[in-house]
Structures are given as C-alpha cells and as structure tokens.
C-alpha cells in the first residue's frame, strides 16, 4: 500500500515523532508505515487520517 504521509508531514512541518505522538504510536511505527514496510490497521489508518484532517483514501492508496 502506498501512502503520502511523508509529503503531508513535510507540508505541516511535523517530524515523525510529532505524528507518532498525535496518533499514539511509536516513531518506529510511523517510519515503517511511511517506508511502506508495514500496512496499518483500519483503526490506525483512521487515526492517521484524523491527525491530518483528511480522508483515508486521500492518504493511502492500494498498489496495483
């Protein structure tokens, strides 16, 4: 699954630790999701979308 977390973070000038704190996970979790090594659960995806005040489908995209 592809995602735009790195870009969205950069736009808001948030560090990975900032986003991790907003979502309530570890910084390593954010690094792993950002790099595409880990697909978050629906709950975590909703939490990330809520942190960016966006819809899930605007952040995550299923790879063909």
């Amino acid at each position, binding site marked *: 699954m592809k995602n735009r977390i790195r870009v969205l973070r950069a736009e808001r000038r948030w560090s990975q630790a900032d986003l991790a704190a907003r979502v*309530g996970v570890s910084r390593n*979790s954010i690094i792993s*999701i950002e790099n595409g090594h880990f697909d978050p659960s629906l709950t975590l995806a909703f939490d990330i979308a809520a942190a960016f005040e966006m819809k899930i489908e605007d952040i995550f995209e299923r790879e063909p």
Partner: protein
Amino acid sequence: MTPRPQPRPRLYLLFLAFCIIPGLSVIAAIPWLKTQPDNLVFLLTGIAAAITILASLVLAILHDRSMGEWERSNSRFSVFWGDAIGTSLVALLLAVPVFRDWVVSIVAAFSGTANIDAQSVILAFVGGFITVVMARVLCMAVISMGWTAWKSRPAREA
C-alpha cells in the same frame, strides 16, 4: 486517537520477580531437595514451575497491551519464526552425539549418579520434548477453534 495502556514498571518488576525467584530458589535448594522424598521434590519444583509460567504469562499480557500494532506485528513474526527454528534446532541437535553426551553428563551431574543409563536419559529427554511439542500443537488447535468460533459469533443487537 486510539488510547493505548501505558507500561506499568512496578507491576512488571513484581511479575519479573515471580519469574526469577522460584527458579533461583529451586537451584539454591538443590542440596536440600536431594535429601527429600521424590514426591515432595516433584511437588515443590512443580509449584515453582507453575508460578514462573503464570508470572511470565501475566508479563506477556502486560507487555502485549502496552504495544502498538507495529510492535505486535514484529512480535508475532519473531514468535512464529523463533518457535519454529528453536523447536527444529532441538530436534536437529538430538541427532548430534556431542549434544546427547552433554545432556547425559548434565543429568549425571545433577543427580549425582556416576553410572547413569545414557539411553534412558535420552529417551526421557526425547519423550519430554515430544510431549511439549504435541501439547503445544494440541492447545493451539483447541484455542484456534475456540477463538475462531468466538470471533464468528453473531453481531450484538443494537
């Protein structure tokens, strides 16, 4: 944000102590245990093992609750492969004469018996190993069926 329970260091330390103390107590009491009847020895070591297993189970639950899903996924991977490789390793090691001799020498040293029956020791070891593996497979199958049934239950009425 989904709330996640925070780690509780004091509780961790308490159950860590329950994991370590029974084993150390048994080791420290070996000279005394050698003078006791077998039934009492098995009872005391069984109680020590049960306390250790229960405490480690509670520790595992506490740790699991404080983990995020990424950490939990890493843990699941490690448990799966660690379990498979560790179990296979013991099975492979049993084919190595040096390992079998080492097991026999350890049992001889602990029991204080000079002329120990090596074949009986290895058979007991293999029997114990197979029992553990079979018990785990059986428990996994039962828990899997129970958990699958529980997760397949109908939705609650609103």
